[in-house]
């Protein structure tokens, strides 16, 4: 018997039992659509994290110090800047400060740094200018505001040329940063950037707790890392516990392995619901086989072979699961789109996930259809004919 004929017959009997078929498919629909939605969200967040990390700066190495045991001084930092692979570097002094303008007052992050910070951290100004070397040299009381901070104090006015009070000292605003959005839980937009020398005076510290270094070539980053590590080990022997050197690439690898795990986990959970849907199909097919025992007897009496009956029921379950799969894919894409736009999540659809979940639903149809179909095909025709 031709496959096409079997598919027609399967469609007929599915149509003949619309409600039941719909309920059976529901399991597969929910399974497939949740696979698609969850994996798309997970992949969306992966790509989000990747772009955020790139936003932090290109070829970036971050040097952090902890505690008070080790203090980075400017001369030592200059040595780091002279390393072969390092293109630019910017030391950072940071602290919490109170910023005031007339009646508005807010706590924010103060970042004291140099002129290279703009390029090292991929940070551009949207208005005015960034810090210059001269500002640093003359301990200028000037500030560059993050986009959110500028908004808080000046609304839609142009802040450039106006003044704010930082911990009681008056600062002239010279620029506003372009918005970067929040990156990995930290808002890069709520910040006041001032010259390093000014910040040291303001926060009354001379210890620099963070240095950003930019490597020259992407492919040499591991080499640059080694250089920096060596230099630090030479300058501060036996103090490796007091600082950490992080390569952006490492961060990216860590993050992507985390989100891969997340993707796998979410996909796995969703796949379980697909499996449950498959059990639903098996259940219904078993009911269908016993309900149609007489039909099977009749078909066998007029010449259906075991194979014909097996194929009929198997195709029925595969058609059910394939239809469920297609509807599930459409639903999943739809729900993903809606979630993406209403919750402002990044949702990345990939055709491989769609293909995978469709294939998986087909396999579920075959695997869970085989048992009932085999049962049907093995019925004894005489007993099946007697069945009422």
């Amino acid at each position, binding site marked *: 018997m031709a496959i096409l*004929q079997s598919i027609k017959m399967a469609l007929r009997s599915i149509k003949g039992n619309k409600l039941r078929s719909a309920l059976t498919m529901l399991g597969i629909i929910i399974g497939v659509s949740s696979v698609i939605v969850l994996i798309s969200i997970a992949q969306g967040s992966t790509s989000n994290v990747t772009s955020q990390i790139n936003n932090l700066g290109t070829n970036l190495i971050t040097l952090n110090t902890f505690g008070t045991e080790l203090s980075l001084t400017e001369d030592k930092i200059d040595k780091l800047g002279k390393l072969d692979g390092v293109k630019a570097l910017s030391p950072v002094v940071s602290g919490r400060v109170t910023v005031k303008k007339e009646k508005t007052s807010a706590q924010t992050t103060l970042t004291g740094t140099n002129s290279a910070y703009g390029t090292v951290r991929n940070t551009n100004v949207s208005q005015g200018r960034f810090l210059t070397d001269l500002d640093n040299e003359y301990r200028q009381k000037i500030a560059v505001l993050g986009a959110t901070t500028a908004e808080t104090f000046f609304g839609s006015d142009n802040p450039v040329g106006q003044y704010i009070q930082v911990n009681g000292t008056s600062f002239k605003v010279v620029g506003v940063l372009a918005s970067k959005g929040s990156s990995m839980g930290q808002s890069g937009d709520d910040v006041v950037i001032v010259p390093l020398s000014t910040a040291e005076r303001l926060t009354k510290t001379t210890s620099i707790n963070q240095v950003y270094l930019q490597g020259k070539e992407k492919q040499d980053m591991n080499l640059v890392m080694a250089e920096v590590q060596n230099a630090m080990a030479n300058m501060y022997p036996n103090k490796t516990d007091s600082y950490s050197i992080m390569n952006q690439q490492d961060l990216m690898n860590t993050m992507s392995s985390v989100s891969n795990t997340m993707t796998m986990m979410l996909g796995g959970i969703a796949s379980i619901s697909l499996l449950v849907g498959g059990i639903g199909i098996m259940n219904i097919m078993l009911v269908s086989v016993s309900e149609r025992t007489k039909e099977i007897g009749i078909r066998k009496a007029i010449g259906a072979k075991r194979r014909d009956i097996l194929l009929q029921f198997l195709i029925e379950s595969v058609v059910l699961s394939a239809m469920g799969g297609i509807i599930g894919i459409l639903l999943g894409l739809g729900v993903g789109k809606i979630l993406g736009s209403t919750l402002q999540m990044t949702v990345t659809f990939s055709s491989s996930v769609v293909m995978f979940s469709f294939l998986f639903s087909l396999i579920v149809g075959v695997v869970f259809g085989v048992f009932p179909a085999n049962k049907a095909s093995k019925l004894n025709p005489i007993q099946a004919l007697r069945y009422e």
Partner: protein
Amino acid sequence: MSTPLIQISSLMKSYKLGGETVHALNNVSLNIDKGEFLAIIGPSGSGKSTLMNMIGCLDRPDSGEYLLDGKAIGKMNDNDLATIRNQKIGFIFQNFNLLTKLTALENVELPLIYSGVSAKERREMALQSLTKVGLKDRSGHLPTQLSGGQQQRVAIARALVGNPSILLADEPTGALDSKTSAEILQLMQGLNELGHTIILITHDLSIAKQAKRMVRIQDGQLFENEGEQIGNFAIY
């Protein structure tokens, strides 16, 4: 005379039920020629249906031999038997056994689907068959939209459609009133005149009498009328 269409010799079939053995068929021998109209008559439980299942290749005997068209059925596997049923045997059941979700035409087409006839040809043959039983204009009806007699005609059309060697009817009028029964019997007689071999199973003597030849079955044993004490077989 050529070899008979059906040659059955010393057929045995028994069922074990709780330690007790029921000999549903006990040493049955029977030859049926092509073109015959044979009635098998017997009381309930005598083994009629069991014999029909044998002849119809739905079941295999415990022992004995059954040759259909010269081929030994006992040695065939399930697939071969399905093919034989499909091509050589047309079943007509007491309760019609139509598929309720298919139209009359689709029901009649069914045996042809399993023998791999193309859709177009199938339709034509099924329509022809329905025409033979006088139901051409009902081809699109579902079984539930047909009377009992009409349903049995559809079943007969389905049995006929593959042009099988034998039509096997087990109590074909059992669920019909006497007028409709008569019509169905007439139809079968007409088919016999067209050359179809018909085996009719019944417990009703008046129906059996309308066949050309009659055998009686009792407790699994078969008796041919000649020389036996089959009572009012005078008509034969």
